[in-house]
């Protein structure tokens, strides 16, 4: 009798656990879908960070039917550390982008970033050369690590975080432009427009680094953030990129490309292909393809230059060797 009871209780507990796991798996993980039938991507050739970049970028932006008139635009570059090398999005490109959006009629352009490791944002801006760009311009910089924050329910539940405090400067803007530096990344494989959005999470709440997101899962946190704060446009700095042990200690790689896109997943997939990496093997890009944008090349329309093949794949840490495309 006792054995029967034990067996019954064991079976019941097993059934509860199995049902719970099944319910957890079946429960929807995202409550938005930003995928459109087609996405536009432009790969622009640009060999250096010269003054010519502004006209090139403006011509590139005109390939998209962007209406930014009277809109407030937040440019979110990737400004990480006061280190030498192609660690940060180049300030010449950031300044050019700011002026282009103003020329296209934006009412306000703000550059916003919350560096993930370095607490002294001014030190990063000095090292990145952005102070020079900001001087005398109509463009303001907002330290997203210390801006006023509001609590926001997440529109995807991959990380289990449910809600985050996010900066008002980002939440109140009409348009978010992610401006990543094209780099390999020692935790995420690559850091492109989606991963770049880690920088909107305020350090004053989550610290330096924003370690709670790492414990909740880097890929999962990226998906939750990008579902909640959609990226409207991407300008990726792949002119001088970084390969190897990125995002801080890697080597410069002259890719000579800027990638513009109206879809962050299409942008990241294209950047990864330019890097000679397979985007479907990067977990957050693959999962983002379900609801944040288009991953499939057939749904990505190239405007401007034809999609070039990389001369050789980007060097990656051995742990990420599976990312390298077989055909490359």
């Amino acid at each position, binding site marked *: 009798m006792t054995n029967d009871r034990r067996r019954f209780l064991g079976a019941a507990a097993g059934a509860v656990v199995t049902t719970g796991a099944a319910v957890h798996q079946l429960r929807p993980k995202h409550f938005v879908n930003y995928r459109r039938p087609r996405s536009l991507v432009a790969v622009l050739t640009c060999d250096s960070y010269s003054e010519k970049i502004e006209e090139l970028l403006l011509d590139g932006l005109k390939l998209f039917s962007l209406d930014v008139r009277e809109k407030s635009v937040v440019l979110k570059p990737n400004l990480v550390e006061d280190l030498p090398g192609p660690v940060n999005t180049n300030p010449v490109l950031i300044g050019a982008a700011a002026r282009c959006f103003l020329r296209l009629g934006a009412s306000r352009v703000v550059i916003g970033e919350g560096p993930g490791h370095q607490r*002294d944002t001014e030190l990063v801006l000095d090292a990145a050369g952005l102070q020079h760009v900001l001087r005398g311009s109509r463009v303001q910089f907002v330290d997203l690590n210390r801006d006023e924050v509001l609590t926001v329910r997440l529109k995807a539940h991959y990380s289990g975080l449910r809600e985050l405090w996010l900066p008002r400067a980002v939440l109140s803007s009409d348009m978010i432009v992610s401006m990543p530096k094209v780099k390999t990344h020692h935790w995420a494989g690559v850091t492109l427009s989606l991963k770049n959005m880690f920088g909107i999470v305020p350090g004053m709440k989550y*610290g330096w680094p924003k370690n709670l997101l790492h414990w909740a899962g880097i890929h999962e946190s990226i998906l939750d953030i990008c579902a909640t704060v959609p990226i409207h446009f991407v300008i990726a700095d792949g002119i001088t990129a970084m390969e190897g042990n990125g995002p801080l200690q890697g080597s410069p790689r002259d890719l000579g490309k800027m990638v513009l896109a109206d879809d962050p997943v299409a942008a990241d997939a294209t950047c990864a292909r330019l890097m000679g990496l397979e985007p479907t093997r990067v977990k957050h890009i693959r999962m983002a393809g379900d609801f944040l944008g288009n991953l499939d090349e057939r749904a990505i329309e190239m405007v401007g230059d034809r999609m070039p093949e990389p001369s050789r794949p980007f060097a990656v840490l051995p742990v990420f060797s599976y990312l390298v495309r077989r055909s490359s």
Partner: protein
Amino acid sequence: MDTTACGVARILANRQLAWGGWSFTGSQQTSIEATCLSALGLAWHEEASTALAIRYLVDSQRADGGWPAFAGDQEACWTTSLALCTLTAVNDASDARERALNWLLSQRGKEGHWFWRWKFKTVDRNVRFNPDKYGWPWCPGAGSWVIPTAFSVVAIKQFSVCSRSDESEKRIQLGVEMLADRACVSGGWNSGNSVVYGVPLPPHVEATAVALLALQDEPRSKIVHASVNWLESRAVEIDAVSSLSWCILTLFVYQRRFEELKRRLAAVVGDGSAIRNNATLATAVLALRCGEMIHPFMVLQ
């Protein structure tokens, strides 16, 4: 206080919110970090502002003894260490300090749990660190990092200088060992990752300065010497106000030359009006007053 520091302190005082706190950059959202640093920067010179700030701090302490990062946040975090340092500096007589100490002693980095210690010792060894040496996280649920650990060590050392419990002693020791474990290979500290995938990462100015403040009364080890030397050499290169200010505050404690750095800081800060970040402005006031007041992060032996 010289005229530059007086003028900057007055600007800081004018930015105080009606209820006694300071926001980071002009909003109405009180930041505990900005409030603590501002209260310390104005202490003994702007008495009304300081008194209002201290009353705000005491009133905003949570029932569990901790402080959140900002007003409206429902979770205590690393700012508790800064609040404890502030209340100790002004010799606050309420029981707020005792409750803050108890909160700090109840917190640990997530790797302090046996499961995560086991994971970081066996499976996940990409970052070189000893998970047995844990400190304090920025916020509950995260791992230990250098700056929150260093401020917690300073706060506990300052508050318990006259009578230290075994628990306080143990956590101070563990915190000091954690800082030693996380030091960068050739000196200094960054956020807390010294070597990743076998590659040494470079130090940060502020993390190094704050970590050295936590170690000021410890034996001067090789890593401490190397770190002070690194900070001293780096300080002459930087114009960023917050980092330069932390350099001055730390080099003063280690009896290194800082007067020239103070002159340079005064030149960079100007009248202070261009510095939007109140925590930075307050740190600059502390640095400009360094040597003319009781150092708020000094640990008595």
